[in-house]
């Protein structure tokens, strides 16, 4: 089973939940930091890294001498990574999504493949937990291609807990799409509520079981709870707004370990996730 820990709003506690869940998980588990733009799960799990790979994306290299300025490449490219101006072919490698279309359609064989470095894929172990993460190259604008490289390294022989990036755009989708269950970590504040709605709308079409974790419970108001009841989003865990949690987190400690009184909550959460994954999706939601 693959569990994605996502959110709309950033800073709601995805990493805190992912780290604690990995620590209390029963059975072989891999913790994966898919927030490749700002990975931080390793700060809590403190893995010993044993391997790394550089991920690259193929980008076009055009040979002006062979080019007849026919524009076949420029027309197939959706991203303007290759253009023909005044008879000259120009490439913008940082815009390229690596589809290989230009190389395939060039009738002159004028395009060969160069590479753009996307970042690093790193892996190792933290106590009994297998650990995997991506780290985007500083200056790289696109994270999904690196995330695909991380996904290729995911060990599906056991369960997988994915710390997803915030938001609801391509990186978040790339982190939750392969998951079996999506956890939405939110907080009962207007921002938390607003972005939870966005996240549900973005992920609903994937037709995966989803559940909510309310962090900083006690803060804010009832709007988020009311919404969850209305749309039948189960609340799997409430984590109180407790200064001691923030203190432990700021010291790089995993809450389920640092605050034993919360360990049972994460054990219960793990059980509810398994139940959620096993239950069929309500047909009515898509009728």
């Amino acid at each position, binding site marked *: 089973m693959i569990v994605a820990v996502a959110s709309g709003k950033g800073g709601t506690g995805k990493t805190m939940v992912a780290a604690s869940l990995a620590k209390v998980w029963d059975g072989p588990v891999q913790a994966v930091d898919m927030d490749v733009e700002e990975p931080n799960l390793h700060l809590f799990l403190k893995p010993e890294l044993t391997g790394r790979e550089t991920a690259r994306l193929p980008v076009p290299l055009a040979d002006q001498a062979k080019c007849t300025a026919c524009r076949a490449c*420029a027309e197939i490219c959706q*991203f*303007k*990574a290759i*253009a*023909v*101006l*005044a008879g*000259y072919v*120009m490439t*913008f490698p*940082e*815009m390229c999504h690596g589809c290989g279309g230009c190389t395939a359609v060039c009738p002159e064989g004028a395009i060969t493949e160069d590479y753009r470095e996307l970042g690093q894929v790193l892996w190792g172990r933290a106590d009994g937990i297998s650990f995997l993460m991506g780290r985007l190259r500083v200056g790289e*604008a696109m994270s999904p291609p690196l995330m695909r490289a991380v996904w290729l390294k995911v060990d599906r022989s056991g369960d997988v807990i994915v710390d997803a990036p915030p938001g609801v755009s391509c990186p978040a989708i790339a982190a939750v799409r392969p998951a079996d269950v999506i956890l939405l970590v939110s907080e009962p504040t207007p921002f938390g509520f607003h972005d939870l709605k966005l996240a549900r709308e973005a992920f609903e079409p994937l037709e995966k079981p989803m559940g909510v974790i309310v962090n900083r419970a006690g803060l804010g108001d009832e709007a988020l709870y009311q919404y969850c009841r209305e749309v039948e989003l189960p609340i799997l865990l409430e984590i109180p707004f407790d200064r001691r949690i923030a203190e432990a987190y700021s010291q790089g400690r995993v809450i389920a370990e640092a605050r034993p009184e919360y360990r049972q909550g994460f054990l219960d959460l793990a059980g509810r996730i398994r139940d959620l994954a096993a239950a069929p999706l309500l047909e009515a939601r898509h009728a």
Partner: protein
Amino acid sequence: MDKIAVSSQGRGLDDQVDPRFGRAAYFIVVDPETMSFEVLDNGNSRAMAQGAGIQAAEIVADSGAKAVLSGFVGPKAFQALSAAGIKIGQGVDGLSVREAVQRYQSGQVDMASRPNKPGHWA
């Protein structure tokens, strides 16, 4: 005299210069001797998630214009226009297309050697 492409918010010489090159509404391609002009719709570039400046540069290059007048030209559009041998005058926003062309003809537009706007992703 070479034709000039001016980024414009409207379809005529008295419309305001569109301050943005890549996402300009239109390009008015003017023959500065006769002030006759043609209008190029840049609507497709405007709608692009990325690469608007590059596509706008392609449109301008195809028009045969040898100079561009606009408010701000980003780095990729600048690179593309430069490669096509098109001169670039920036900072003429706040003027009408006609005034921008007149200012260019009187030599009062700095023809930049580098872009005056950082890329969105830089």
